[in-house]
C-alpha cells in the first residue's frame, strides 16, 4: 500500500523526495558499472515482473489474500542497486500512470520500499547468508527471512517519517503498534513467497541469481 498525499507534511515529503532522487542517481551509477547497456531492456523486464507480481493475488487464509511486494526478491535476483532502480520505476509509474500513491509522497514511498525494503533487505540477506550453508537451501532461507524482516522494517520507515512530519496527533506508540502488527503478518507472507520464488530460480538457474554464490555475472556491491 502506498502512502497518499496528506499523511506527511510538505517539507518532510519534499526532503524525502530530494533524498530519493539522490539515491536513485547513485543507484543508476552503481548499476551502470556491471550491467552496462544491457541494463535497460533487462531492468525493464525485471520491473515488469515485479509490477506483475504485485498485481497477482494469492490466498493467505479464508477471506484474506495478499500480493508480493518484491523488494528483497528483486534485490536477491538482480542486486540491491538494480532492485532499487526497478522498484523506483515501478513506484513512479504507479504514481503517474495509475494514480496509485500520492505524487508528493513519491519520495517517501521510494525510500521505504526501495531503499529500506530492497537495499536494506539485501544487506540483511547478506548477513544471514554468512551463517547459513552457501547452497540453494541457504540462499532460499536467507532470502525468506530477510524479506520477512524487510517488510516491517519498511513500515518503520513510515514511522520515522510520521515522527518527523506526521500531520496527525495520534500517539507514536499507537501508530507503531498498528503498523508493526499488520506488517509482521504481511512480512510472514512476503517471506514465505520470496523464499519459494528464490528457491525455484536458484535451483534452476543459479547463474541468474545475483545474491547466490554461483552467480555468473559481475557483482559490484561492497556491502558485506
Amino acid at each position, binding site marked *: 500500500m502506498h502512502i497518499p498525499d496528506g499523511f506527511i507534511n510538505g517539507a518532510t515529503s519534499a526532503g524525502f523526495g530530494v533524498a530519493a532522487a539522490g539515491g536513485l542517481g547513485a543507484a543508476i551509477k552503481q548499476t551502470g558499472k556491471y550491467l552496462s547497456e544491457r541494463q535497460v531492456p533487462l531492468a525493464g523486464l525485471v520491473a515488469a515482473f515485479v509490477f506483475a507480481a504485485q498485481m497477482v493475488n494469492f490466498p493467505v487464509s479464508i477471506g484474506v489474500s495478499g500480493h508480493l511486494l518484491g523488494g528483497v526478491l528483486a534485490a536477491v535476483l538482480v542486486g540491491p542497486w538494480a532492485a532499487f532502480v526497478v522498484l523506483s520505476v515501478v513506484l513512479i509509474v504507479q504514481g503517474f*500512470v495509475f494514480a496509485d500513491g500520492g505524487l508528493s509522497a513519491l519520495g517517501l514511498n521510494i525510500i521505504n520500499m526501495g531503499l529500506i525494503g530492497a537495499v536494506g533487505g539485501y544487506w540483511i540477506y547478506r548477513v544471514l547468508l554468512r551463517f547459513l550453508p552457501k547452497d540453494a537451501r541457504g540462499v532460499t532461507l536467507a532470502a525468506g527471512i530477510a524479506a520477512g524482516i524487510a517488510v516491517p522494517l519498511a513500515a518503520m520507515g513510515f514511522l520515522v517519517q510520521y515522527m518527523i512530519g506526521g500531520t496527525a496527533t495520534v500517539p507514536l506508540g499507537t501508530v507503531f503498534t498498528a503498523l508493526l502488527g499488520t506488517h509482521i503478518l504481511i512480512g510472514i507472507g512476503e517471506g514465505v513467497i520470496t523464499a519459494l520464488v528464490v528457491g525455484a530460480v536458484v535451483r534452476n538457474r543459479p547463474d541468474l541469481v545475483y545474491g547466490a554464490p554461483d552467480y555468473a555475472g559481475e557483482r559490484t556491491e561492497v556491502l558485506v
Partner: protein
Amino acid sequence: MAGGHVHALYRHGDTPLHRLRPQVKIATAFLFVFAVVATPREAMWAFLIYAAIMLAAASVARLGVGFVATRMLIYVPFIIAALLIPFFAGGEKVTVLGIELSRTGLWDMWNILAKATLGLLTSVVLAGTTDIPSMLRGFEALRVPRVLTAIMGFMIRYLDVVLGEFKRMRVAMHSRGHNPRWLGHAKPYATSAGLIFIRSYERGERVYLAMASRGYDGHMPHQNGDSAPVSQWAMALAVPLAAWTIVAIAWSTL
C-alpha cells in the same frame, strides 16, 4: 486487477488538457499537489478552491464522474485509517452523536481526507489526459535521466506480456486441480513466479540482442519531444501559482 490486462488511466480525447504538453502537465500537477499538502488545515476555503479547480479540470478534460469516482476507490484503506484517527488521538474530547471523539483527531482526519482526495484527483486528471508515451516524453523534457524513462518504457511495454504469463500459468494450474486456500498452498504460485522471472530475464536478454543487432549502443534514439511554448507554461503554471498564493494567504491569516 488480477486479470491479464493492464488498464492505464488514459482516456482518449481531444480537449485543451489533452493537448497541453506533458512536461507542462507533470510540472503543474507536482507543484499543485505540494501546494495542497502545504496548506494549513484550518483554511477550509482554500481546499474548496482547490477542489473547484480540479473538478473544473476534470470536466474540461471530459473524464466523467463515474471514471473519476471509480479511480478514487484505490485509497479506501487509507480512508478507513483516517476515519479511525478521531478515536485514537489524544487531547480535548468532543461528543458527536453520543461518541467521544478527539477534537484534534477530527482535524487530523479532515486534513488527511482533504489532501489525499485532492492529490488523488490531481493524479487522476494527469494520468487520464496523458497517454504513456507522452508521459515518458514529458519526463525526458523535465530532465529525468534517459535510463529511467527507457526502463519505464520497457516495463510498460512488457507488463501485459508478463501478466499474461502469470494468468496462463494460473489457468494451467487450476485446470490440473490446483485450488489454493491459504498461504501453505502458495508453492505452485511461487514456483511459477520463479519460472516467469527466468522467462522475463531471458526475454530481456533476447530483446537486448535484437536491439544490439539493430545498432543499439546503450542509448535510446533521441525522440525530439516538442518543447512547450511559453504561452502553455504561463497558462498552466498560473494554477500552482494561484495555489501557492492561497497557501501564503492562508498561513498569514491563521
